[in-house]
């Protein structure tokens, strides 16, 4: 186990190096000049040279890349170009807000959607199943943006159940987060229930299920005692690999409802040419993805004794 983890971490080094290189090339080498973005088209050459020096952009690309690698290794991403704030504090605050937007619908959605999928599987190929499948296919053919727009109009503008948008820190945030939670819950239903239904159906005619049936187990017992325990592994996989995206937040929700999470921070940084934020978010996002993939593989081996870590 320890050796396996050590080897996986070693294998991640070239990947992280590649991510750093890709990020650096896209932002520092190919992107527009952030000094020009900050000062506009009428800045004097001296002002531009000063700012370029202050931001460390007057060094050669190789030196800048080495500095970026140092930042990645020490987890010290420096300061924002625009606000001058320490990035660590800013990103931590943003991640907490993003998590408060994404975690409740994620947890609640997992429980609700597994239950609905079990119910649909219990009545597979019946009216409920067919109607639900048709409904989900139709619902998933409408852009997520339309649900956000429509529900904001209906529930916030017309019925006045929620504020239109905005955000406050602390417990007052709940007032503003209710509508984004509800929308995300609805958006998750189609894809999740379809996935879970497929997972349950994959095993419904397996030998061990047939054996259980032949021993007189009812459909409910078959589903809860036999099919569900075996489906836990892919369900966990699905959910563990989603966690990095929860930290990253929902760009669409944050933008639409003006919630100051990582998504909003990133998009603002993009229009201001705030390279340190953009690079830090990209690399940290990739690190989170790699880490949770490893955790997922470990859980997988832990849950299924047939899987050998090698």
């Amino acid at each position, binding site marked *: 186990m320890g050796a396996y983890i050590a080897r996986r971490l070693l294998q991640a080094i070239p990947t992280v190096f590649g991510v750093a290189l*890709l990020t650096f090339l896209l932002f520092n080498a190919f992107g527009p000049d952030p000094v020009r973005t900050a000062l506009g088209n009428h800045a004097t050459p001296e002002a531009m040279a000063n700012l370029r020096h202050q931001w460390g952009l007057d060094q050669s690309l190789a030196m800048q890349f080495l500095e970026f690698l140092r930042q990645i290794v020490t987890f010290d991403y420096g300061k924002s170009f625009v606000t001058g704030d320490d990035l660590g504090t800013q990103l931590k605050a943003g991640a907490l807000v993003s998590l408060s937007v994404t975690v409740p619908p994620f947890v609640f959605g997992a429980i609700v959607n597994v239950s609905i999928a079990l119910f649909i599987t219990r009545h597979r190929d019946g009216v409920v199943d067919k109607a639900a499948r048709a409904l989900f296919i139709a619902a998933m053919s409408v852009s997520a943006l339309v649900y956000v727009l429509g529900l904001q109009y209906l529930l916030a503008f017309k019925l006045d159940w929620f504020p239109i948008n905005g955000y406050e820190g602390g417990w007052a945030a709940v007032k503003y987060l209710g509508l984004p939670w509800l929308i995300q819950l609805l958006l998750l239903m189609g894809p999740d229930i379809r996935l879970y239904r497929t997972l349950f159906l994959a095993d419904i005619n397996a030998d061990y299920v047939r054996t259980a049936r032949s021993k007189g187990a009812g459909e409910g017992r078959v589903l809860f005692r036999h099919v569900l325990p075996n489906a836990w592994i892919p369900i966990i996989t699905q959910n563990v690999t989603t966690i990095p995206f929860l930290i990253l937040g929902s760009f669409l929700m944050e933008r639409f409802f003006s919630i100051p999470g990582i998504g909003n921070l990133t998009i603002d940084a993009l229009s201001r040419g705030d390279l340190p934020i953009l690079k830090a978010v*990209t690399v940290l*996002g990739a690190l989170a993805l790699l880490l949770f993939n490893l955790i997922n593989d470990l859980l997988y081996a832990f849950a299924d004794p047939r899987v050998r870590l090698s």
Partner: protein
Amino acid sequence: MAHAKPRSAALEALLALWSRPHIRACMIVLALYLLIAFAGYAHLLPDHEAAVGGSQDPPSWHPATLLGTDILGRSVLWRVLAGVQTAITIGAATTALAVPFGTALGLAAGYFGGWVDAVINWVYSVVVSVPDILLITAISYAMGKGLTSICVAIAATSWVSIMRLVRGEVLKHKGSDYVLAARSLGAGSRRIMFSEILPNVVHVAIVTSSLVLLAAVKGEVILTYLGLGIQDGASWGLLIAGASQDLTNDIWGPLAGTVTAMFLLIYSLSAIGDALRDVLDPRIA
């Protein structure tokens, strides 16, 4: 065989799709959208930038004002149709970038193995490690916002799955008898890869390409709303983003028109994609 002449696999697949009434309807819808897009390329669509009435006229039975007019008096229907052209362009360009790229790299990685495989897999692991939205953000920063950068960005996130699938298939085929036979007859690497193995694995790429198309059409709307996508002209993303303000004034035309147009295209594409998978590769259904 009932048929005197052997038909190509592609024609066979198309006929199998056509024989299902539901899929036939979807194919007709798709053909209609392609027709609209080509009419747009040939400048045969009505001008969507010209004013056809007053500001925000309500819908009426005249074709140009069927969905009303926007704040500048331009026909909403003509703008939705111009959005069809944009959507088809983005879908086609993204697919045309991602599918050949992913297929070629998958073919090379699977066939040559060794350091070629190692390098391609390294690039793969780098790209899949960056969350899609962040890669798209980075590319749109590097390339500037707009239609080209959306296509490149979505293609950059979608070639990886095609590469992986094609590579897996090539590994299965590499040692099979027909490849050995071709090699013993003196065929070179290029011939074996493109004339022998490719025709046997290309179905994987075709099936996945319908997913790339869908991702591109849906992605445009979200990315445009986030400010990463199309900045001017007519696109469904811009129309839906603008509809937010219209709704509070009880104007439904732009939203209703765009949602219907998008629904028909996305629904047809997913239905055809699913059916294509059934027809071409029943194992991965």
